[in-house]
């Protein structure tokens, strides 16, 4: 643009020819803010869509405390949310090391910047790893459930102890010749994934044979607990089961509403992808710091810009944490 300016007054050029800095921020920093604002709108779109589906199924949405109960190395112990809380701390802490890196950059302390960047990268990697662990637990599932024709999930409980019961504790195995459906034998061109460990009939037989087993439905009562059917109701309802669901995929999941797993994969996946790309960008910047690129450039603004992105990822996690795990 400056080439088209015919007036040669210096002030004029500073004002309109790129010499002026809007908001006293450099071009790169303002563009990073543009990106952050638009990305925040993407995330809020996802979270609001989650809210929409949740409000639509407000009386049957899965309760996060009952879904995310795992803690590393503590198998079988009910530890709701502790691990996610630790993940939150890891991410906030890596945010802090990032600010410290930016601060050290302002003072042109190359080694300090490098150390703090490295800590930030480690924090991010720990977070992504934790998220992968969460996903694998979520996908594998723990107890298993059955699905009715209408897409409802029935989980199973022990009437006496009030604890969840896994399918393999009561299902009665029978020999069947159920073969995996493959795309070449179907009228429509589709196949199916791996078969669940039990057939619906085996689960139904198990429920009938074990007088302790009752059904835990998706419905939530007035106090916020899942409705548990009586033994008689359970015997009546269990015959509606047409599918055995173990763990979670994009079609159905053992935790409840189908959309729950879809949103879990989509939102935490999108966030995890942001963390992953943040780690990659941080690594690039880290090596740039090491080879002294910013030392020669005379300022560490690049660290500040990538820092903005990194804090934004942290900020999004604060919201995902609240709306997915707490509320």
């Amino acid at each position, binding site marked *: 643009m400056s080439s088209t300016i015919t007036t040669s007054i210096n002030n004029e050029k500073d004002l309109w020819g790129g010499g002026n800095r809007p908001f006293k*921020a450099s071009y790169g920093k303002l563009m990073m*803010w543009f990106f952050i604002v638009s990305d925040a709108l993407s995330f809020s779109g996802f979270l609001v869509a989650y809210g929409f589906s949740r*409000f639509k199924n407000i009386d049957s949405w899965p309760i996060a405390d009952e879904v995310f109960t795992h803690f590393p190395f503590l198998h079988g112990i009910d530890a709701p949310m502790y691990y996610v809380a630790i993940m939150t701390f890891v991410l906030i802490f890596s945010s802090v090391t990032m600010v410290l890196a930016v601060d050290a950059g302002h003072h042109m302390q190359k080694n300090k910047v490098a150390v703090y960047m490295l800590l930030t990268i480690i924090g991010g990697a720990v977070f992504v790893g934790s998220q992968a662990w969460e996903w694998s637990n979520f996908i594998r599932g723990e107890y298993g459930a059955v699905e009715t024709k209408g897409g409802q999930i029935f989980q199973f409980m022990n009437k006496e102890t009030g604890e969840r019961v896994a399918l393999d504790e009561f299902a009665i195995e029978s020999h069947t010749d159920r073969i995996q459906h493959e795309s070449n034998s179907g009228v429509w061109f589709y196949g199916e994934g791996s078969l669940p460990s039990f057939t619906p009939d085996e689960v139904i037989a198990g429920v009938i044979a074990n007088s302790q087993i009752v059904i835990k439905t998706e419905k939530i009562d007035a106090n916020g607990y899942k409705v548990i059917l009586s033994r008689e109701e359970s015997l009546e309802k269990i015959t509606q089961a047409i599918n055995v669901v173990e763990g979670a995929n994009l079609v159905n999941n053992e935790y409840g509403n189908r959309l729950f797993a879809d949103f879990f994969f989509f939102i935490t996946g999108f966030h995890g992808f942001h963390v992953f790309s943040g780690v990659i960008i941080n690594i690039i910047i880290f090596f740039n710091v090491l080879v002294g690129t910013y030392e020669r450039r005379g300022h560490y603004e690049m660290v500040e810009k990538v820092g903005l992105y990194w804090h934004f990822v942290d900020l999004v996690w604060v919201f995902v944490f609240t709306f997915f795990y*707490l509320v």
Partner: protein
Amino acid sequence: MENSTHKLEIFRGLLKFKSNETKIWGVLFFLSIVTIVEVSLGINKPEVLIVNSFLSMKLINWIFVILTIVKAYYIAWDFMHLRDEPQGLQFSIVITLIFLISYLAFILLVEGNYIFDIMYEGFLSWNF
């Protein structure tokens, strides 16, 4: 970008830090406390906060949402150092987001609630 350009007080001047670095640790401490409060509320779920509701949302959820926004404020203001930026930049970021997000949330949550009512009170049974 020297230290003098950093605004070092938080809580409306209640707490003033000596350097930017100590301010960061202070904010981390504050955010940690808020997170601990959130998690302990989420695990214990006090009866009072669940039974009572305000504007058809449980009190506990109000607390979660408010504490989240508090956390978001301190992350944006101190970690993303919006506190040190000119007011114009602060406003063009925050007001845009607040307006658009609250609009979107309002529209879609009302719609979700409406669909719930339709399915709940409608003549058709949705429980196959």
